[in-house]
């Protein structure tokens, strides 16, 4: 299933993408199913109780909510009325998890990227930093270019969305804790990061508003047979900059989940994999032509997960 969070009539709602690529409003479709198929009396309230109010609450409800979503989806396919099923143009997609509790982004996790960033060698333990959850935006939202930033960069990554409380889990069982996957772009202000790293650690340089485009869907884990073997690519104004495969990750998806489960992860928390080579900061000899500037269109794509299309706009 492809799950989404979307805005329709100024309301944040959760949905699923049907076989025709349209958006099924899960609460309305499940309530309709309960009312018409199961003759439920308080269908609307029951739908909220079973599905939760937003994607994090949905994920917390686990298999029961997923099962309800499948029923809602099938019901809407049979009864595609325009209050249950919306055209893509009628909605604005948000990130599937618009407000993750924690957003843990790996760094230095592709050997080709480690060498382009002139680090001597890869790390011995997984490296990551926290991006502020408030920097998450939707798959087609604009990315504001802050006036403080000179060197704005992109990093296509895979986002791994956690399904259930995940504390100190082993590598073998790690994938059991994945709800699904999304495409992700780890927007980075290299000059701000450099200035922060001089006397401290970086935080602001990765966490300006809009620095974490994610989506368009949360593709549930059952639909991705081998997440470790997906192509990922990024284009700027149509020109290919990054083109690689998650197979080149130094610490694999399983390793990352097992290691970062020491933080105590919760449903809806997001881990991102780190990025392969091809970022602007790695361009030789001159980086200047590749820094993102207002007007640029950044398209980040992960195989089978869809594409992010974000326009850079002056803030």
């Amino acid at each position, binding site marked *: 299933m492809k799950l989404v969070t979307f805005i329709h009539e100024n309301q944040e709602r959760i949905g699923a993408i049907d076989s025709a690529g349209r958006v099924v409003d899960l609460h309305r479709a499940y309530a309709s199913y309960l009312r018409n198929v199961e003759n439920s009396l308080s269908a609307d309230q029951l739908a909220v109780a079973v599905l939760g109010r937003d994607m994090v609450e949905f994920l917390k409800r686990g298999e029961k909510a997923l099962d309800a979503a499948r029923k809602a989806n099938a019901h809407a396919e049979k009864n595609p009325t325009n209050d249950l099923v919306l055209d893509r143009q009628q909605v604005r997609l948000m990130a599937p998890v618009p407000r993750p509790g924690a957003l843990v982004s790996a760094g230095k996790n592709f050997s080709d990227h480690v060498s382009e960033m002139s680090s001597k060698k890869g790390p011995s333990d997984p490296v990551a930093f926290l991006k502020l959850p408030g920097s998450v935006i939707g798959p087609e939202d604009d990315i504001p270019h802050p006036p403080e930033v000179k060197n704005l960069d992109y990093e296509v990554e895979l986002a791994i969305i956690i399904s259930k409380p995940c504390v100190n889990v082993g590598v073998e069982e790690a994938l059991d804790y994945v709800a699904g996957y999304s495409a992700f772009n780890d927007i980075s202000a290299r000059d701000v990061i450099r200035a922060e790293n*001089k*006397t401290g650690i970086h935080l602001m340089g990765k966490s300006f508003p809009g620095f974490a485009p994610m989506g368009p869907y949360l593709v549930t884990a059952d639909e991705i047979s081998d997440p470790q073997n997906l192509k990922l690519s990024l284009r700027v104004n149509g020109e290919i900059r990054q083109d690689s495969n998650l197979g080149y990750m130094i610490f694999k998806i399983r390793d990352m989940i097992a290691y970062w489960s020491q933080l105590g992860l919760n449903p809806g928390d997001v881990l991102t994999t780190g990025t392969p080579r091809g970022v602007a900061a790695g361009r030789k000899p001159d980086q200047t032509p590749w820094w993102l500037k207002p007007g640029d269109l950044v398209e980040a794509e992960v195989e089978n997960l869809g594409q992010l299309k974000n326009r850079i706009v002056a803030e």
Partner: protein
Amino acid sequence: MNICLGLLESSRPDQTRIFAEIGGKLIDLQLAYAALLSQSPEHQANAYKLAAFYFPETIAAFLARAEPAKKCLDETAAFVRRSGVSELRGPAGEKIAYDAQEIRLLPPFLNPEKSFVIGFSDRARVEALPKAEIPTGFYKLPQTFVTNGAPIVWPKFSNEVDADGCLAIVIGKAGKRIAPEKAWEHVAGATLMIDITARDINKREGLTTNNLLGKNFPSSTCLGPAVLIGNARKDFAALEVELAIDRVVKQKFALCDCVFTVEQIIARWSILGIKPGDWLAIGASMALQGDRLQNPVPLNIGSTICCSSPAIGELSHQIVSAGGLRR
């Protein structure tokens, strides 16, 4: 005036309430204000509704109500003192005044967007370091927050845990790219914070310029117990914050010991936008003696940590074992 966030024993986890410490009791502010309003014929009919508006479920939401809500707080406090704490009842006879042990105290802020610790900010530490031009900081995940009395669980992955006392400046008014001279207008108060660090992990992470697991394991951020309301430098200039381990004072500092001013810190971090309930803490790594990074104050299973400031209160915690410990 100090306010805190708590739950009554019988309440659901989302039914949080704001309390004020008055006359040795914790006063339910929403009900106390309703009691005050119900004395006036003009507001009697809407007493509960108005009280729920000015004293909502969280301190962050209360701060977002800005000056009118602060005025209500002052009026309510004066009313409570006037009426006598022990006599006080709600409009329908509800209990308003509680003993501390009747309330489950919560961290004053449960889910802020910005919960930052300004790193390397004390004079004692930075003398040994290159002079920082900008106040850098790190992020403490809300899921790590605990408050006074909660046990701190020794993280299994570490052999070296220590604690730093901090003063967290609490934001009361939203803003973005705030000019230094306007900074205090955006402050609502201050609370205490203890930054618990798995130092061995933190040192290793530091080599790769990151700072995550060593600072963000469960119960690694003690916050509270109350928010001292105020929004001028003079309200906080005289505050002294002390950190004691097993009753021996190890750290002691005031706002003036920070190499960055509150004005500079707010000007810098408001670039990202700040909101009521966000906080910016200073003081981490402030030490009384020596360079603590080379000579840390070690904690052990059973150690008690106490961070206190007379006007705010104290955070008192014990380190407990999670089992399967290496130490």
